[in-house]
């Protein structure tokens, strides 16, 4: 088990290192010159050269990459070019906001998704199953900016129940800000919810047809105990993987959703950084997102192994 976890961890570290190279390389080929951006189009060539030297941009790429990654690991993420402030507190502030939004979404879609999937599987081929399955299929295909607009139209404009803008003033407590979180959270959750419903349904349908569920039933166990002791443990295994991959989707969804709702999270920060060609900020934000993605995958793998003895002992 320990060996398994260590190996997985090794893979995650490798993934992150590779991603950091890709991020670094990608930001290098972005059009536009940083010095020109900072000093303006009419700055003298000498001033630009000085600035490049000051920022270390005249060094070989490998050296730049090395010092960037080294500093990043040590917690020195440098300064943002556009805001002229330190990157780390800025990113963490936004990350905290995003984490709250993601957590609300997560707490909504994981249980709801599993329950809906189970209901569909247990009532297979009934009208409830049809409704849930068709509904979830529709949501998979719906991009966030469309579902966000639909939700705003219904719940903010027509019904007036919830605010359509989610900008939260610093200092407001999360409790008072909670209504502002509901619509963006639902928007972010919908796609992942649909995947979880479908995965839970199909794996539960499979497990319900296995011989060991027949064994459990013919032991004389009441249906709820068959479900909780024998079915769930096996049928939720694939769902766990989807939940972890869903964290990645969540990150992608945040960028769009936060922009639509004007919510100050990490997604909007990344968008802001890209628009301003703020290379250090892009690098730091992107790498942080990769890190979160990697860690959540690692957790999924380990959890999967803990729950599935066939993997654990191989």
């Amino acid at each position, binding site marked *: 088990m320990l060996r398994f976890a260590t190996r997985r961890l090794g893979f995650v570290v490798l993934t992150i290192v590779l991603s950091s190279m890709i991020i670094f390389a990608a930001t290098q080929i972005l059009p536009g010159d940083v010095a020109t951006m900072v000093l303006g189009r009419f700055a003298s060539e000498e001033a630009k050269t000085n600035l490049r030297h000051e920022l270390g941009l005249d060094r070989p790429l490998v050296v730049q990459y090395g010092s960037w990654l080294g500093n990043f690991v040590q917690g020195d993420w440098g300064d943002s070019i556009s805001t002229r402030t330190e990157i780390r507190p800025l990113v963490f502030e936004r990350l905290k906001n995003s984490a709250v939004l993601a957590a609300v979404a997560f707490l909504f879609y994981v249980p709801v998704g599993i329950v809906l999937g189970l209901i569909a599987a247990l009532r297979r081929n009934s009208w409830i199953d049809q409704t849930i399955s068709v509904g979830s299929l529709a949501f998979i295909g719906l991009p966030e900016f469309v579902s966000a607009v639909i939700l705003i139209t219904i719940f903010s404009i027509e019904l007036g129940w919830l605010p359509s803008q989610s900008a939260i003033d610093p200092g407001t407590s999360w409790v008072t800000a909670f209504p502002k979180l509901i619509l963006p959270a639902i928007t972010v959750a919908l796609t992942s919810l649909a995947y979880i419903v479908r995965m839970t349904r199909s794996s539960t349908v499979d497990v319900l047809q296995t011989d060991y569920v027949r064994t459990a039933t013919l032991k*004389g166990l009441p249906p709820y105990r068959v479900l909780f002791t024998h079915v769930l443990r096996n049928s939720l295994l694939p769902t766990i993987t989807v939940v972890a991959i869903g964290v990645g989707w969540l990150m992608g969804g945040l960028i769009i959703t936060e922009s639509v709702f004007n919510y100050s999270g990490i997604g909007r920060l990344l968008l802001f950084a890209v628009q301003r060609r703020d290379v250090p900020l892009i690098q730091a934000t992107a790498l942080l997102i990769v890190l979160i993605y990697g860690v959540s995958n690692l957790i999924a793998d380990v959890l999967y192994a803990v729950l599935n003895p066939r993997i654990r002992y191989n």
Partner: protein
Amino acid sequence: MLEVEGLSIEYETETGILPAVRNVSLEVREHESFGIVGESGSGKSTLAMGAIRYLASNGRVTGGSVRLNGVELLDLSRKELRALWGSRIGVVYQSPLTALNPSILIGKQLAEVARLHLGMDRGAAMTRVTEMLAKVAMPDPEAVMRRYPHQLSGGMLQRCVIAMALMTNPALLIMDEPTTALDVTTQAVVLDLVAELKREFDSAIVYITHDLGVVTKICDRVGVMYAGEFMEQASLRELFQRPLHPYTLDLLGCVPHFDRSPEKRSLVTIPGSIPHLDELPPGCIFAPRCSFVRDACRAARPPLDPVGEGHSSACIRWRIVPTPAERLGAATEALTELRSCSGDGAPLVEVDDVKTYFKGPGEGFLPGRRRHRAIRAVDGVSLTVCEGQTLGVVGESGSGKTTVARAIVGLTPATEGEIRLHGRKLEPAAESRKRGVLKEIQMVFQNPDASLNPTRTVGDAISRPLVLLGGMGRTEAATRARELLEAVSLPAGYYDRLPNELSGGEKQRVAIARAFAAEPDLILCDEPISSLDVSVQGSLMNLLMKLQVEQRTSYVFISHDLSAVQHLSDTIAVVYVGRVMELGDAVTVLTPPFHPYTEALLSAVPVADPDVKQTPIRLRGNVPSAMDIPSGCRFHTRCPRFLGDICREHEPPWRHGEGSHRIYCHIPLDELVQLQAETLVLASTTEDA
């Protein structure tokens, strides 16, 4: 005790209502075991599961009565039924690995029954499980309870399932093909166990099987089912000695008998196939396939009427049903003499010290320093196949018999050793062999579903080797393919059908036709009949023998089923963990001296004749892994005739007997003869039959 009266069960399907079981009655007493024998689709499982009211959601009981110790099961509510399931009714299933939950410890799964029905707390339930596991002769029950199902072998798992079913000393124990998924030697051990438990526990046993041999080991009374009805019910001995229904009679004739006659005989065949449930004939359902049919049979459905003491038959002409011996004489014919490689044949294929090793899973943490153990699937095998003859290769799963065949055909290239065809060395891999060579060696696989492309018609499948290897044009190939269909007794109209429109036996006929298309010298048959029904097995064995006589093709016939192997083979090789243990002409391999492994296999084969007495030689433990082959003689860990250090430390010598007969054992042949003469394995052979 269990009384089933007039039980009928239907399934609702998209195409209509299928009457899967119709008006069926049976009775089983305490300590008695009732065998339900039938081919697939006969409704035997539906009957048993329907009787305890466990049916798929589209199935329902439409009439009759099922009483267990006087309680009418059909009147019980769901809740009352659950109180019986697992406590008064135990079930043992076909595949023990899938019958247990893969992610729950064995001990916990078994304890669940004790906690639920015996009201025990955790500790008491665990103690009870330990006791039960000890009762089913489980070595080290405590350790087994802390394992997950995938960590145990099939035989061990089936013991766990049996222990679970017997935990509450149930009134009724249903065993649904409990040994079908196990190796012969393991099957023998489990059957012994069931026979013993039958005496110890009070349960009435309903034992479902397709295997007429297994029935003789376990059952007191037997019912033969066909398309949802019983054809005949009788005591075990009477059913086998004096069957009074033509279906039973023919079924018995489909099974090869162990004999030492110097000729190969055909088996009885049953023409046609089981009728579909939605188009049952109005009269006797067996009438369309019966060789004793008269007009009266087609008029009305005959009831299952008593024809003697505890014997009933659903045949109106039961008085004229001949004895099995008469039937065998009339319905079978001698096809060829048995031949021997030493005398009659030139060698066609020689396999010379062939080894096939695979890279095993690695050990060690760091990528660069991982050590891989070799999987020695075939570990030095030498064999000869002679022209126009059949070499039978027999052994348990994991013996490497399939890998030998794949090495010969070049699908899994041998890593060492030489394979010669007509004296010329073959390239190890099929890709590097020339077309002329590829054409000479063809293969028939176990599972025709997987070996026939589902999107290609039968005609395409057979024409392909004709075009590719035979160099024929399209039209010529099509004509020849139709001829081949006829040769394997399929209607020419099958040319345009897709595999899914064919039954399992028909698919395998197509696979055989395809193998013959290239007019090969050698066909490797890898368990070609194992997944098929008894009657289909019989007709396929007849077909293989007929084609061999006509085409003078050689076969390598691989099977775990010793009775099929002895029926078809001129020469037999017994393999164990990648090595040949015994090799020789069929008759000499089947008479003492035996290699101790052959002896154990022969004693484990379920012979379909209750009068045959077999010495109970049982192998302990499991077939060793090909990654971890025991030192010295590789069979020493399980050998019932283990001598001592010599077996553990030294590879045994080849001991040569009569003709080409040789045995790989430390015990000299004359000593083996003495040991084995006392315990003559087939006490009564069916030479008189």
